[in-house]
């Protein structure tokens, strides 16, 4: 497992009031994202445990774009990754942000 950790300042605070949300499944090419409302609303942390080694640069880019574009402020995010592609990672993160904001089940 490769472990990566990012702390970013988040321009958009997460919506809703749910304490936590989880999306996705750890499988080949897939990942789970656990989001917990646990930080100051202008901060977001992302911790990743991934089976695919050597993709730190891509993770950093995906996470930075996510925090810049979506409502991620105040979230402590933990990811278990089964070697998902960046598009899948971005999609799950966005689904997680939507879920914790309470827009959809």
């Amino acid at each position, binding site marked *: 497992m490769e472990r990566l950790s990012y702390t970013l300042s988040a321009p958009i605070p997460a919506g809703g009031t749910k304490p936590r949300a989880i999306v996705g499944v750890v499988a080949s090419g897939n990942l789970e994202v656990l989001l917990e409302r646990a930080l100051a609303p202008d901060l977001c942390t992302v911790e990743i445990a991934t089976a*695919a080694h050597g*993709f730190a*640069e*891509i993770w950093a*880019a*995906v996470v930075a774009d996510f925090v810049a574009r979506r409502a991620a402020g105040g979230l402590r995010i933990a990811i278990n990754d089964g*070697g998902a*592609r*960046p*598009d*899948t990672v*971005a*999609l799950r993160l*966005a*689904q997680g942000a*939507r879920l914790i904001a309470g827009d959809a089940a």
Partner: protein
Amino acid sequence: MRDWATQKAARAARIAAGASFARGKVVQAADLAPFLEAVLRPGDRVCLEGDNQKQADLLADALAEVDPGVIHDLHMVQSGIVLPSHLDVFEKGIARRLDYSYSGPQAARIARMLYGGQIALGAVHTYLELFARYFIDLTPQVALIAAVSADRDGNLYTGPNTEDTPTVVEATSFKDGLVVAQVGEIVDRVPRVDIPGDRVHFVVEAGRPFHVEPLFTRDPGAITETQILTAMLAIKGLYAPYGIRRLNHGIGFNTAAIELLLPTYGEKLGLRGQVCTHWALNPHPTLIPAIEAGWVEQIHCFGSEVGMDDYIAARPDIYFTGADGSLRSNRAFCQTAGLYACDLFIGSTLQVDISGHSSTVTTNRIAGFGGAPNMGSDPRGRRHPSEPWLKAGAEADPDTPAPLRRGRKLVVQIGETFGDGNVPLFVERLDALALAEKLDLPLAPVMVYGDDVTHIVTEEGIANLLLCRDADEREQAIRGVAGYTEIGRRRDAAMVARLRERGVIRRPEDLGIDPLDADRSLLAARSIKDLALASGGLYRPPSRFRNW
């Protein structure tokens, strides 16, 4: 005095030599190898029928059994290198030279044998190009073909998988070549005559159907959310604004997703009857829901598809069918239709470079191209107007007066920025170039040239290359939809932003598409079983695709 009929005499000699193994035209399967030794000559150009679908497998196996001491240095001119025996003949020294189109399942082995020098390669063609050469400079002396049944006069019934057979026979038989057909059975009367018997010289009864690969069956269960997103982009961002009614789809999952989104997402956009009405397309099972929902007016097919025969026969308004009721396919005609009569080709590839060149060839796999380079090219000979063609032409060349301006065929590459195993779709340099250097080829095996490509669709958006005014803009437009690949991360952000303002790059949100809506529940069928149900039980998928 010159003898003007040497070829006729040569064929007569071959027939005479073969006759000792035959009763009338019928040769026993057990005698095939010695029979072939009798009718073939060293150095012959031989067309062994086989494309990406049907295979003259019995004849292929028999050819691999002949004595290389007797028959050697054959020049194989065939559409597909698909069966192991297709390469065995080179390994054994029976054949030496090769001109072909497609080699999907043998991609790795053919690469090894090319590197090892066991095969002298002419070229990797597109189907139509190879067929054309059958009539000019690659005319077969012997054709080994496949059909469903034959009568004792050699009249052949090819069934739904007619495919290459008429073309191969036309080129061979009318230029004094010899035609040998394997058939599943010999009958008193064939259901319809696909090949007249006077063009067929020998027939062998295989006692079983020829092999067919279900290449065009895509399991909806394997379609991902990202593929659905790319399909939504294509429908809303290309099909709708250009009004694409006449088109061809590749065989990837992205285009299968488009087919399955028509009755749901497409319906919601009010596009039924406006797009996707006329097709050059194999009988894709994934198109069944759209056909059943009334989207499709007609489809001409290159070949058939395993399990689709009953469905096709029950939908003669949609498909081309014969007097017997079953599909009549024809690869050469359908490729021509795809080239001249379609306004859009959309397909996937393995690599795209920063000029937009694409290829499915990688260093260790030479899969060939099939029909993609043909359908994925702009036909310079086209003269009839259509709305999408004129609109694309205007985008590419706004300054030329309309009456003198060529239209453009839309050639779209669709895919995810990363493929299996996190391999990036976008590369600085195609593997095909390294291959060409290694094999000392004058041409790199490029599938679709950059100047033919009009759009690239990924989950990041659509790049409209028609609107790019120079190589720089092209490169940044491509980088702009290359996502998190290295190509994408090295984009010029400011220039990409300007291209987006001009509509050269359109993101999902620019088209009013929320990536979170790209859900599998949008698919009109989510499994092969759904397809079978949608067909009213007429589609009977092969066992390997079943989970019931």
